[in-house]
């Protein structure tokens, strides 16, 4: 096992809903190499977001462990950044101030320089003093990506980051995130219910079932980037992933009806 690996081992999580236990994650284990781009697909509410929150240290798991670099993650740390479906920029701060949020212990020129550098990376130079409500959805999400990157996290977690964007902006943002990933070289873990998105972006695609959230299958995609969205290999993969969710024919028929 090399350095900066993220090891998720036998993670289970149960929530209590109306006094009955709901098993959200059941014995999930993945080993993720440093710099790998992992996509996790599953139904809405299958526990993918919960898994990300556990990796982020925002939630505790009931059993199992998440280790980064050999260290167990118990609380949020600057090593792990997170991007949510909503941009979650603070409306009372400018883009610049939002991006600088994680740079608390750095001051003055250096801080400004880092902020400018990341705003340039996400192509928001010129919008430093704009407020979030003045930005489009895509721009706001870029600003939130910059905000997560300023700490130079080893792992970036993306929780359906483009789910709220329109289809064209989404495709554009997928290319952007690849460009940023190739430049920054952090580990990316992206959660989505969009299979096309997952196979376009990921080195590996992890398919999770819902309730309980279990890993159904993991697909390795060794196709070179930039990928052709219409590539035959990808459409075969898409079929294979699709069939994970609809294992039996009668189930598929039921879904259609």
């Amino acid at each position, binding site marked *: 096992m090399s350095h900066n690996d993220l090891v998720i081992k036998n993670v289970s999580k149960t929530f209590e809903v109306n006094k009955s236990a709901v098993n959200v994650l059941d014995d999930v284990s993945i080993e993720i190499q440093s710099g790998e781009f992992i996509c996790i697909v599953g139904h809405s509410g299958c526990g993918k977001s919960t898994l990300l929150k556990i990796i*982020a240290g*925002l939630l505790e798991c009931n059993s199992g462990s998440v280790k980064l670099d050999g260290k167990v993650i118990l609380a*949020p*740390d*600057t090593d792990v*950044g*997170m991007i*949510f479906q*909503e941009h*979650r920029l*603070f*409306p*009372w*701060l400018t883009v610049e101030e939002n991006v600088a*949020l*994680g740079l*608390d212990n750095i001051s003055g020129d250096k801080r400004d320089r880092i902020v400018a550098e990341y705003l340039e990376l996400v192509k928001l130079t010129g919008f430093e003093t704009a*407020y*979030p*409500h003045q930005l489009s959805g895509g721009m706001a999400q870029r600003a939130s990506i910059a905000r*997560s990157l300023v*700490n130079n996290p080893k792992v970036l977690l993306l929780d359906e980051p483009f789910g709220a964007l329109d289809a064209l902006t989404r495709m554009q943002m997928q290319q952007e995130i690849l460009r940023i990933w190739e430049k920054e070289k952090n580990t990316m873990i992206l959660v989505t219910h969009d299979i096309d998105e997952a196979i376009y972006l990921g080195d590996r695609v992890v398919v999770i079932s819902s309730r309980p959230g279990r890993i159904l299958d993991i697909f390795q995609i060794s196709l070179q980037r930039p990928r052709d969205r219409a590539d035959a290999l990808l459409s075969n993969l898409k079929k294979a992933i699709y069939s994970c969710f609809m294992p039996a024919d009668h189930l598929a028929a039921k879904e259609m009806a």
Partner: protein
Amino acid sequence: MARFTNYLFFPVMIFVSWWFVTEHEYFPAVILPPMKAVSASFLKQLESGQLSQDILVSLIRVAKGFSIAAILGIFLGLLMGVSKTVNRFFVIPLNAIRQIPIIAWIPLIILWCGIGELSKVVIIVLGAFFPVLVNTVFGISQVPKDYIEVGRMFRLSRWKMFTKIYLPSAIPAIFEGLKLGLSNSWTIVVAAEIIAASSGIGYRINDARSLMQSEVVIVGILLIGLIGLALDQIFVWGSKLLTPWAHTK
């Protein structure tokens, strides 16, 4: 233009009916004076400086009482919002006191503080404090969990959490409280002046009533309404200026 008419039709109608009723002398002038008499009285009071003096006295009382209430309300509200312990400590007595109409306090406050300036200021503080407090506590309590999660991801210190997330997120609600508090202050100062005072706009209308000068009473009442409206507007503009994000949907 249509909107303009929409806004102004009703107020204009009031004035027209007033004119009509007094022109035909349906009521004695002591009960409802004609508009002419009211505007003459307004000009006379304006020229003699009595009017500005009355208003100034009342506004200064409001300024004193309201500022004290605002500072106390925001300070305690923030503390109660942030700390469950402080909240539990104060919440029962404060909620009980809040149910007492402010007017009911006036006799007791006069017993304690006399009928001078102090008693008016104290009454205003009582009246303006609660809306500020309640709204501040509410503002802090409804900070979106999403933002708190972001704060946790960046490991913000407790102080930074407060200054960057809790406080700014509560500001629109605090403004709402201040607005209510100010409008309460203005209502209460007039009430207190009517009950016990020797100056101020409330004193003036009560004094004029005892002298059967109904036109002076009406000038006073109209001004009280207009000033109240103006104070309210100041807060509407102020909050738009200071919290632009809360006004874009």
